[in-house]
């Protein structure tokens, strides 16, 4: 069953300047993204900073309004709604319960003035899930145990917890309304290595227990591979490659994906990898993206065509699609 579908989603942030704040340019954060999320599926989104992966996540949650394109939401009863521009109140109440988010930095995403009980209660109360106070208390206690914290912690404040524990609280808060989809925006990048695995295991368990869908945004290819069924690789606002996660690791096609893979350290002093990487330069600014293929200024296998024509997504079989002229048929 589908939950969300986005069709050629686009987001430009206008740059305004001058006395009358006229629009003098656009930050082209996301161009023509197609994405479809099924029940129980995990989609990983990888890319460097500034490639538009967080923008994509926030657009799907309707925290931003898209510049162009379409977002279609399917509820539990299999009714589809177009929620691109306006959501009616009845749809919004369903949508907000179905789709939740876990943010990157657990040190910023929890209100320091609220205790843990209030933090977790807020979404429950907003959705009117429990009227009876004792039932609600029991539910919150069960949520806390579910993420590996003691129910007694409910009366404490966020500053009393370490980063890993805070991220557990954020997970409990997202889980509180029993969503069908959680967008995780770099949930482990602010954590220590030994704690990162704990959080990843927890997310995976919760997902399997509740048959939830996840959109897992990260810059760490290894983590994304572990979590996802399907991976989307983004570069400068464009989806450059998208396929099943095993396939991406066994058979990366786009030169950018290959570059990313070559930049993962080897973890073996006998096979040092980083000295051999080929790519120079840095991602260009999304205000003035290069013509043609966005990756061509750094691409090791550049052709003449790449500078002029922007490649479309070519299908290479088994759901593997690549935006690169090398794979044109």
């Amino acid at each position, binding site marked *: 069953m589908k939950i969300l579908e986005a069709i050629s989603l686009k987001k430009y942030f206008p740059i305004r300047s001058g006395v009358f704040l006229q629009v003098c340019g656009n930050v082209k954060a996301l161009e023509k993204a197609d994405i479809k999320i099924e029940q129980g599926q995990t989609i990983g989104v990888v890319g*460097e*900073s500034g490639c538009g992966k967080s923008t994509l996540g926030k657009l799907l949650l309707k925290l931003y309004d898209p510049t162009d394109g379409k977002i279609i939401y399917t509820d539990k009863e299999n009714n589809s709604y177009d929620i691109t521009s306006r959501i009616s109140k009845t749809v919004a109440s369903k949508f907000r319960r179905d789709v939740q988010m876990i943010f990157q930095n657990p040190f910023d995403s929890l209100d320091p003035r609220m205790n843990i009980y209030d933090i977790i209660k807020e979404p429950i109360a907003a959705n009117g899930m429990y009227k009876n106070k004792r039932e609600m208390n029991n539910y919150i206690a069960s949520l806390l145990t579910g993420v590996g914290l003691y129910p007694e912690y409910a009366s404490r404040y966020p500053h009393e917890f*370490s980063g*890993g*524990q805070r991220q557990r609280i954020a997970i409990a808060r997202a889980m509180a309304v029993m969503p069908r989809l959680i967008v995780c925006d770099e949930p482990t990048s602010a954590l*220590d*290595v*030994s*704690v*990162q*695995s*704990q959080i*990843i*295991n927890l997310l*995976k368990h919760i997902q399997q227990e509740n048959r939830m869908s996840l959109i897992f945004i990260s*810059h*760490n*290819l*290894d*983590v994304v*591979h*572990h979590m996802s069924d399907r991976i989307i690789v983004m570069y400068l606002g464009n989806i450059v490659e998208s396929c099943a*996660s*095993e396939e991406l*690791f066994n058979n990366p096609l786009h030169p950018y994906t290959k*570059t*990313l893979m*070559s*930049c*993962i*350290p*080897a*973890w*073996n*002093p*006998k096979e*040092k*990898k*980083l*000295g051999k*990487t080929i*790519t*120079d330069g*840095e*991602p260009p600014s999304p205000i003035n993206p290069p013509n043609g293929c966005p990756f061509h200024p750094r691409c090791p296998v550049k052709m003449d065509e790449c500078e002029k024509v922007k490649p479309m997504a070519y299908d290479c079989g088994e759901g593997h699609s690549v935006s690169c002229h090398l794979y044109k048929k």
Partner: protein
Amino acid sequence: MTYENKVIDVKNLKTYFRGYDGMIKAVDGISFFLKKGEVLSLVGESGCGKSVTVNTIMGLIKSPPATVSGEIIYNGKNLVGLKQNEFKNIRGNKISMIFQEPMSSFDPLYTIGQQINEIVKTHITSNNEESKKLIIHALKNVNIPEPEKRYNEYPHEMSGGMLQRILIAMALITNPDIIIADEPTTALDVTIQAQVLKLMKELQKQYNSSIIFITHDLGIVSEIADRVHVMYAGKIIEKASVQEIFDHPLHPYTQGLLNSRVKKEYKGRDLPFIEGYVPKPNEFPNGCRFNPRCPFKKDICTSEEPKESLINEEHSVCCWLYKEGENNENS
């Protein structure tokens, strides 16, 4: 090993801070040395005292209020308790530092040229033309395109990767004996990280300087380090060459760190992890500081602190599981 080989020799260094609830033993009795032309990597999670260690070496910890004891021998001189005006000739000249956040390590109000010039003026030459030539040459060395133009630009006009390379140029300009790099690539993207590491390795060979490289990422360690010291809760718990650490990690914490890498084979299974959290510096447990999280805990671990035992020439560990000269693997 002869004495001349050691560029810096740290003996029983302790840095304590006074907190509201007792002494915070950020660095608690660590000893290590750095050889000429090698990359020594200090590995550990946040709060284990790696940054405090190098800040103490750089003389950036004010004492008092902090208490610093022990010895840091550089060039036959003890840097602990050295007066600030004596330190001036060493800091930024003989020992220089590359900081973690390139975006916040620069003053936004001065141009790149002015900021590098400050170092050149203090340590090399006060002739403006000469120093400009020197700076532009240094920028060229770290692959900055159009260094003449960049000289007059402000930090906000540049990307993070470029600023990190300028920081490296800044650290190298006085041709120091020791470069301290405090998580220099943590704030950077993977492709840029690869470029910066490659550059650092090349320049290190070219200048034959020694680097203390701080990181929490063992992947980076495998790429750049010659020797590795693993820190946990203010102590160095394992010292070994890079190959030894990856082939025969001995301390349970080191093993845990190596295991917590997300490997391809783990797909569909649970990732192995270390139970619990890093203790706060005012709540270190008695005995071995890793004991609450350790899977091989024995009675002695909670009562007595383990001493450093030498397993072989290039490997030593602080753990009750191992005895001097013996290599009984417990994994």
